[in-house]
């Protein structure tokens, strides 16, 4: 890896330090290539023929290039259904859940009411509880309610808000002076209006970032959909991708599986590239304060 001795550079870019920069850059570049190589291979193999992938001679460049697998995946009804279902889950959850989360965050950070700390601590404690504990009762509960053949088990819990978003937004609002609340009260502003006219605009940036992260979470979620949804009609995209893998791997249609996987990764990757700065910032905030 990197040269430990000279990790801390001085401000002056001497000849020596430039040399070190170059060495470090090359070392990091090699590391980065190792990191993305499997993904590059995934993309390349989606353009290969089955025979090339299964041949004894190892090669990474498709020969010949086959572009048909993508249109094959995109016209598969299972794939489109999976995509549709994932979006059906994501939209209401993000809109309603984003609203309830930001409303709670406002209340927790700016309003005074009895039981506030107890409720907040209760919510925080849920972040510690492993999903394994609640998944069995939730499964039985959803079965009894007749929800297991629908998308409701994935949608309804999300509508009530998301604890980590509440927590994040609440932290975010601590930098806003409390006196705004007092001033608004004097002006006869109602509490709900205070939320949407004053605090919602203040939270908007942070909320957007959190919603993007939440979307990525919903998009990539596999565990909950696979436990709660039995009906193929309502499989989400990740479950469909997995079922492609178990079904087509037997027929060794790896190019198809790889093309489907590429398509499953693409949206979150694009979101990440576009909103990189915000995503990294909010990741950093959650980790560094320790």
């Amino acid at each position: 890896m990197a040269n430990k001795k000279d990790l801390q550079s001085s401000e002056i870019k001497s000849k020596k330090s430039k040399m070190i920069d170059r060495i470090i850059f090359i070392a990091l570049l090699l590391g980065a290539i190792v990191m993305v190589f499997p993904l590059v291979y995934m993309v390349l193999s989606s353009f290969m023929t089955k025979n090339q992938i299964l041949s004894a001679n190892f090669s990474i460049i498709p020969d010949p290039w086959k572009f048909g697998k993508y249109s094959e995946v995109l016209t598969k009804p299972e794939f489109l259904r999976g995509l549709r279902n994932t979006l059906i889950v994501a939209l209401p959850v993000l809109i309603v859940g984003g609203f309830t989360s930001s409303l709670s965050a406002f209340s927790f950070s700016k309003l005074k009411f009895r039981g506030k700390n107890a409720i907040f601590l209760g919510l925080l404690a849920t972040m510690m509880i492993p999903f394994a504990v609640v998944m069995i009762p939730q499964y039985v509960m959803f079965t009894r309610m007749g929800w297991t053949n629908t998308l409701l088990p994935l949608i309804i819990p999300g509508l009530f808000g998301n604890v980590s978003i509440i927590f994040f937004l609440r932290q975010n609002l601590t930098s806003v002076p409390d006196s705004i609340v007092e001033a608004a009260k004097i002006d006869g502003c109602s509490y709900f209006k205070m939320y949407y006219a004053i605090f919602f605009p203040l939270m908007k940036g942070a909320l957007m970032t959190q919603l993007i992260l939440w979307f990525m979470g919903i998009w990539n979620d596999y565990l909950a959909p696979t436990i709660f949804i039995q009906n193929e009609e309502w499989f989400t995209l990740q479950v469909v991708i997995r079922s492609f893998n178990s079904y087509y791997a037997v027929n060794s249609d790896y190019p198809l599986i790889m093309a489907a996987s590429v398509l499953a990764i693409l949206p979150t990757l694009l979101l990440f590239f576009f909103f990189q700065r915000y995503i990294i910032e909010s990741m950093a905030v959650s980790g560094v304060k320790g």
Partner: protein
Amino acid sequence: MSGGNTKPVKKKMNKAEFKEHCWGLTFVAPAFIGFCIFMAFPIAFAFVASLTKWNGMNNMLDNFIGLANYTKLLTDAKFWKVLVNTIIYMVGIPIGMILGLLIAVAMNRKIRGIKVLRTLYYVPVVSSLVAVAILWMWVFNYDYGLLNSIVKLISGAHGPNWLGDEFWVKISMIIFMVWKGLGSSIILYLSGLQGIPRDYYEAAQIDGASGWNLFRYITVPLVSPVTFYLLITGLIGGFQVFVEVLVMVPTGGLNYSAATVVFYLYDKAFGSNQMGYGSAMAFLLAILIFIVTAINFKGQDKWVKTIE
């Protein structure tokens, strides 16, 4: 959704305060109600279930067996096996932290193009776990996989049976997990490093410290809050490893050598309808996580430094 204020009021609130109280409660009501329905109630339910021989269909309370599930777990060789597997996978946590810190330190220089590299390291983090697990399943394939092709290219000999061998399957999972999580350790360490004031280094340099000593006595202690965070979240997540095993080694591996606690739990609860036994396992897991986290928090004063 009233502001349900049924508790005895200690101090009389005036009208304005009462109004704020009601609105405050109303605004947090959705989160609170969701918490009660989808967390608090299931937790209580799971605890009661863990004391019964419940299969999801029969009457739970008629099958009350006390702590028998728990004592059975302690003598269940399979449970111990999956617990040991789960702990072995945690070897990936320090590996990821050390690599992450070294890379972050290397990246914490003003070099052109470093942002692009940072992004590349982060790509696996945002990629779907299922998709990349399928990908790595292919990378680890014994006959045609990428890894063995490379091994063959370099050494000429056939590589190990990554996912099919009791020993190598663990190495494979650790490699996969380190690969998947490395980007986020790098990002967190980078932001930790950026919080260290430059004068610390300059002062130490004046005192004659250099290179390794700067790293050892300034960098490492001052990023300890990040290390602590990564350790805690790594351990909590490490105890719950499941999807990667389910996708890459659906059978749990040769002689269950790849299975984790949650994998076994899932198998028991949904594969053979032993909901009571599964619940007991889930509770034991929660207790384990709680104990490990508590120990960590207790021990943090000894090594976690903060920048004043």
